[in-house]
């Protein structure tokens, strides 16, 4: 019977096991099931494939996607993945382990999560970070819930209209089902009152502009609320950190730390906060401990916050994190180091400013809005934004992403070569010529 490579039971094994149980057929294992529930007949699945056929099938599907040169961001950034990362994260001791419940045989996982937490704290300037959550937008939702759980008798969250659309969308979805009420505002600080538990501001807004957050924390705190900042951890290597701005919570997506775009996931959300909020931070947290021989080791800690203990009183239902992706980010940051992260941001800055200048020279864009930026920027096209986007798509570029206001955004990472940028500019010039006719 063992025809599938990962079902080891032979006919003889099955007979022996049934004999031990005192049954004569596999069907009898389901004797407690009312007969009307059995699924009789074949399942509507294709005939089983062997490994080589599976590979061919998925390769054929992948071939139906178009390979584009990515000049867009909006929450997913095309940074390079050093080969070391998949080589290490695919080690099966990491990949095939569960959540580190038995700490004696999970020190590998526990140690890298502790390192991840430490690196997120270094980037955000915060005191405490968790082991990661699903993604950036759900981290923003958890931040909203933390604010409500920490500020007595207040439920309202004001989120900046400058947050990425993917973040706003998820905040809005969750708000609909309780826990917090949400206002989206272009000027959150002007709407503060005694119903507000927290304010969520971007560190870089959806147009790519770096936000000057001076005074924000003071205003939010004066109103008795907490400030959460949504940030790009890669950019934080050169930007003033959320903690330096006076924020209480920092959240975002770790995807820019060398994670492939992968059609949207897996990525990893990160969350960090001030020590005073430590026990309101959701998700797994790893802490240092000593074993009975006095050896330093690491354990899951502060678990009394979590759903398996608090059940309906828990502030979050999250159990797993995105552990392997946290490892991904940890290895990335180890390889890059402070110098590498600075150089990476310099490369993005130079290339993005170069491209913006050249695009403006084509004459079909107006500059908008003004403000310092790193790798992502927005322009106002003098032609139809959707047309421009489609035109570039046909030429093999994913670029000029239209937003709700008819502007288009571009993003340039260190992966984009001079030749690719020349080709994009040439395509835009061609568009200008053809549309001008």
């Amino acid at each position: 019977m063992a025809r599938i490579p990962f079902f080891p039971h032979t006919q003889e094994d099955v007979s022996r096991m049934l004999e031990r149980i005192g049954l004569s057929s596999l069907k009898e294992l389901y004797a407690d099931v009312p007969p009307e529930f059995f699924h009789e007949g074949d399942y509507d699945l294709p005939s089983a494939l062997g490994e080589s056929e599976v590979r061919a099938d998925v390769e054929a599907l992948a071939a139906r996607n178009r390979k584009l040169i990515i000049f867009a961001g909006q929450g997913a950034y095309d940074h390079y993945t050093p080969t070391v990362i998949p080589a290490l994260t695919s080690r099966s001791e990491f990949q095939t382990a569960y959540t580190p419940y038995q700490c004696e045989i999970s020190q590998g996982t526990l140690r890298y999560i502790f390192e991840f937490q430490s690196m997120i704290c270094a980037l955000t300037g915060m005191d405490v970070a968790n082991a990661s959550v699903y993604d950036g937008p759900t981290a923003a939702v958890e931040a909203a819930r933390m604010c409500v759980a920490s500020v007595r008798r207040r439920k309202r969250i004001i989120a900046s209209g400058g947050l990425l659309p993917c973040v706003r969308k998820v905040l809005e979805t969750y708000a609909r089902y309780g826990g917090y009420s949400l206002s989206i505002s272009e000027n959150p600080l002007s709407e503060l009152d005694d119903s507000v538990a927290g304010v969520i501001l971007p560190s870089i807004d959806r147009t790519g502009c770096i936000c000057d957050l001076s005074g924000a924390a003071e205003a939010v705190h004066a109103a008795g609320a907490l400030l959460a900042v949504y940030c790009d951890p890669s950019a934080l290597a050169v930007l003033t950190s959320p903690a330096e701005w006076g924020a209480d919570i920092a959240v975002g997506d770790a995807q820019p730390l060398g994670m492939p775009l992968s059609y949207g996931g897996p990525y990893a959300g990160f969350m960090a906060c001030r020590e005073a909020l430590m026990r309101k931070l959701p998700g797994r947290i790893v802490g240092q401990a000593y074993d009975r021989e006095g050896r330093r080791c690491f354990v899951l800690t502060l678990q009394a916050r979590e759903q398996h203990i608090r059940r309906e009183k828990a502030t979050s239902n999250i159990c797993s994190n995105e552990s392997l992706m946290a490892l991904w980010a940890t290895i990335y940051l180890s390889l890059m180091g402070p110098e590498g992260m600075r150089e990476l941001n310099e490369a993005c800055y130079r290339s993005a400013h170069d491209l913006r200048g050249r695009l403006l020279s084509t004459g079909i864009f107006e500059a908008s809005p003004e403000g310092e930026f790193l790798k992502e920027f927005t322009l106002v096209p003098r032609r139809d934004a959707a047309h421009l986007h489609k035109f570039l798509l046909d030429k093999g570029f994913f670029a000029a992403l239209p937003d709700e206001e008819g502007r288009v955004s571009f993003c340039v990472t260190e992966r984009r070569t001079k030749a690719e940028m020349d080709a994009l500019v040439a395509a835009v010039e061609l568009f200008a010529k053809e549309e001008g006719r």
Partner: protein
Amino acid sequence: MSTVKEGLLYSESHEWVRMDGDVAIIGVSDFAQSEMGDITYVDMPDEGDTLAQGEDFGALESVKASSELYSPVSGTVIACNAELEEAPQRINQDPYSAWIIKVEVTDKAQLSALMSAAAYAAKIGA
């Protein structure tokens, strides 16, 4: 076998109350601390918070458990035991001297809803 201290009032949710004038001094019983095991953290309200009888005002945490604390009386929190921030194990060591909060009581009649030491001992089978 857990001890029940004479002269205190007890709630269904295992808090004890000692009255000092209009002030209720509140802690948890020996039974409650032994059920929890090693207490790692005591979540306490802010001074000045107002509590209704039966409202939760914090929680005890151990490595594998969490237990809400419920106020046996209505009133205003006038003090929290700061010593428990550094040494939550005081509750394990001596639950009847390790008080958690002091509440200025608004309605002393509520005390009649609480149990005597004897009644509480009977409830927990001590």
